[in-house]
């Protein structure tokens, strides 16, 4: 995929790969083939080395012999200087892969009378190129000619002619030049070398040095425009691009346990994603390192290799401390599954840290990498640098599919979500440990701030360090708020008591009610019997009255009969 990319760009502009780590990525394949490139920078920024590595790599990796024209150092000096980087110039010279030529210029020895040209130099370069069939050439430092030869006007036009001539020859040229005051080069060489200009910089901030590389221009090609930190170490030059890595790594769906079963449950039951980046942040003493250790133990138990970068504790101290919470790391270290790398963050510059880390990772090929803590790097106001460094590290780890576990110390005054290094955007799973102070004691709470790509719990858990490792408990959530520790326990007891009381109350009420109901029913019975008694009494009276009335009527008609009354009709009405 990478090759295709390079090739598709080659159609646009042929390029000469440098094989310098990282440079080909930001230049899209290397330096312009058959054209001159200007490398400029202040003293000691690595121009000569850059140029030399370009030649040596060309000769060894791409079978392109190269000529090194040195205006400053002699052949012997050069050979000795780059031997420390593992370049064996003597052998390369013997095999006709590299041609070194020292051109000696000293003004005091030269008088000028009338016009001259640099045909002598042309002849020498031509000879050198022809003798080994060179495809690449370095002129280091071309501007020395200005101090060695009189009449800058002639020199300028001659240098212009030289570069044209080299271009016509089709050799890929690297010209180095010292950086001028406010200009890229002292003599304005950038006017002649217009195809590609690379600026090297070496600056010291907060007592640590940072080397940077920037592509000022690259005619006819897209290129990375940022300042890229670079390193010079025993393996030569390496540029560490941030953006070139892109975001095209594949993501694993595999899940791995955090070593804490309850935490796995919180992360939809399965733990972290393999190859993801986990951050645990919290104030001092909240158990960040313990969480890391728990994760390490889990990984080692699975038989995976772990690289543990510790920046504040020594490995033995760490092992001792972890033993107190029942995590034993020593056996894993002995079996070679766990390797510690303890360095003070101030020991190197950030770039060196990054590169040594990357080298270690490449060597050990771990499945899990721990950085404890990441904000140890923050010194003064270098947060941006730290962020870029971590960004590059995270990118690198993701490309390799390595699970990264970072811890970060937040200062007590800050809001919890504010990590010191502002790397939240890089983090896939972010766990927050926080102090909870209730009732004169300090407890730890854990919650998942975010976890990309999984359904995770939104609950706060009480985080306890026991002598059998880390334990997560449910916290008390009630009307009184969130409670942990003894407060949780006492609240729970209080709750129990209250509940009992409630229960008794209800029972009592129910009993009372029952009694009332019974009383009421008894009354009803009594009233009913009273009523019934009255009713029968009343019916009796009514019966008596009725019979009395009938009898009275009978008596009356009997009487009328007896009196022979004629008003018969009148009396029938009463009947």
């Amino acid at each position, binding site marked *: 995929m990478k090759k295709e990319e390079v090739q598709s760009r080659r159609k646009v502009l042929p390029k000469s790969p440098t094989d310098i780590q990282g440079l080909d990525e930001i230049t899209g394949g290397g330096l312009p083939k058959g054209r001159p490139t200007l490398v400029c920078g202040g003293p000691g920024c690595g121009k000569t080395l850059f140029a030399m590595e370009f030649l040596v790599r060309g000769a060894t990796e791409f079978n392109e012999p190269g000529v090194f024209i040195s205006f400053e150092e002699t052949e012997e000096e050069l050979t000795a200087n780059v031997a420390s980087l593992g370049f064996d110039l003597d052998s390369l010279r013997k095999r006709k892969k590299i041609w070194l030529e020292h051109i000696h210029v000293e003004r005091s020895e030269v*008088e000028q*009378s009338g016009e001259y040209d*640099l045909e002598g*130099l042309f002849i020498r370069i031509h*000879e050198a190129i022809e003798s080994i069939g060179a495809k690449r050439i370095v002129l280091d430092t071309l501007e020395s000619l200005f101090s060695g030869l009189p009449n800058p006007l002639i020199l300028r036009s001659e240098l212009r002619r030289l570069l044209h001539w080299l271009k016509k020859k089709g050799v890929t040229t690297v010209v180095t030049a010292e950086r001028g005051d406010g200009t890229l080069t002292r003599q304005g060489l950038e006017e002649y070398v217009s195809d590609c200009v690379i600026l090297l910089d070496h600056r010291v901030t907060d007592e640590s040095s940072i080397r940077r590389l920037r592509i000022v221009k690259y005619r006819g090609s897209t290129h990375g425009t940022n300042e890229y930190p670079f390193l010079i170490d025993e393996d030569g030059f390496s540029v560490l691009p941030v953006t070139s890595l892109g975001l095209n790594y594949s993501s694993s769906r595999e899940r791995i346990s955090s070593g804490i079963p309850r935490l796995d449950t919180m992360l939809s039951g399965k733990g972290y994603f393999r190859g993801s980046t986990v951050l645990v942040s919290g104030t001092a003493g909240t158990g960040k390192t313990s969480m890391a250790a728990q994760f390490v133990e889990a990984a080692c138990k699975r038989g995976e290799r772990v690289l543990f970068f510790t920046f504040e504790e020594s490995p033995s101290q760490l092992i001792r401390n972890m033993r107190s919470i029942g995590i034993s790391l020593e056996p894993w270290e002995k079996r070679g599954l766990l390797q510690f790398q303890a360095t003070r963050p101030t020991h190197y510059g950030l770039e060196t840290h990054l590169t040594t880390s990357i080298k270690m990772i490449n060597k050990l090929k771990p499945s899990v990498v721990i950085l404890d803590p990441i904000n140890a790097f923050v010194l003064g106001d270098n947060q941006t640098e730290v962020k870029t460094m971590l960004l590059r590290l995270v990118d690198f780890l993701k490309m390799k599919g390595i699970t990264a576990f970072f811890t970060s110390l937040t200062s007590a005054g800050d809001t919890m979500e504010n990590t010191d290094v502002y790397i939240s955007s890089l983090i896939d799973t972010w766990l927050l440990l926080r102090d909870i102070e209730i009732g004169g004691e300090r407890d730890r709470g854990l919650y998942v701030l975010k976890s990309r790509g999984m359904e995770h719990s939104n609950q706060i858990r009480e985080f306890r360090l026991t002598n059998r490792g880390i334990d997560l408990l449910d916290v008390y959530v009630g009307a009184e708020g969130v409670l942990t520790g003894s407060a949780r326990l006492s609240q729970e007891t209080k709750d129990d008591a209250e509940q009992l009381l409630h229960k008794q109350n209800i029972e009592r009420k129910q009993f009372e009610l029952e009694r009332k109901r019974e009383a009421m029913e008894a009354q009803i019975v009594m009233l009913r019997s009273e009523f019934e008694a009255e009713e029968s009494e009343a019916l009796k009276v009514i019966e008596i009255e009725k019979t009395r009335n009938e009898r009275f009527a009978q008596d009356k008609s009997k009487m009328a009969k007896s009196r022979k009354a004629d008003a018969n009709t009148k009396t029938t009405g009463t009947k």
Partner: protein
Amino acid sequence: MKIKHEKSKARRSKTSDGSGHRRLVERRKRAVKSGSDKWILRLYVAGQTNKAVTALNNLKLICEEQLKDRYHIEVIDLLKNPKLARDNQILAVPTLVRKLPLPVRNIIGDLSDKERVLVGLDLIERSALLGKQ
């Protein structure tokens, strides 16, 4: 033996002040007059260019005037002998090299500025140029 002596003197004179240089020039003039020195001059050129031809003509004129019968000019064409450019550290052409008498002197250019040639060959004092510079 004598040459060696002069060489060491000349070295000293180079690093010391103008008076040493003046003494050297005086001695050179005397030596020229007495005819005890043989001058060996080498002119490096790259092909028969205009500059090369001009330089050789100018050199011949100066030598005839200053060093009659006491000089020898070698013309080296670097196109024919490219290795000599490396061996003798030649960059610019034409370059005139005074091989003898020692110390070795280099003058670059087509030698059209006669006074500068004379200074370069230690035939006149540098102070003579001051007005011109």
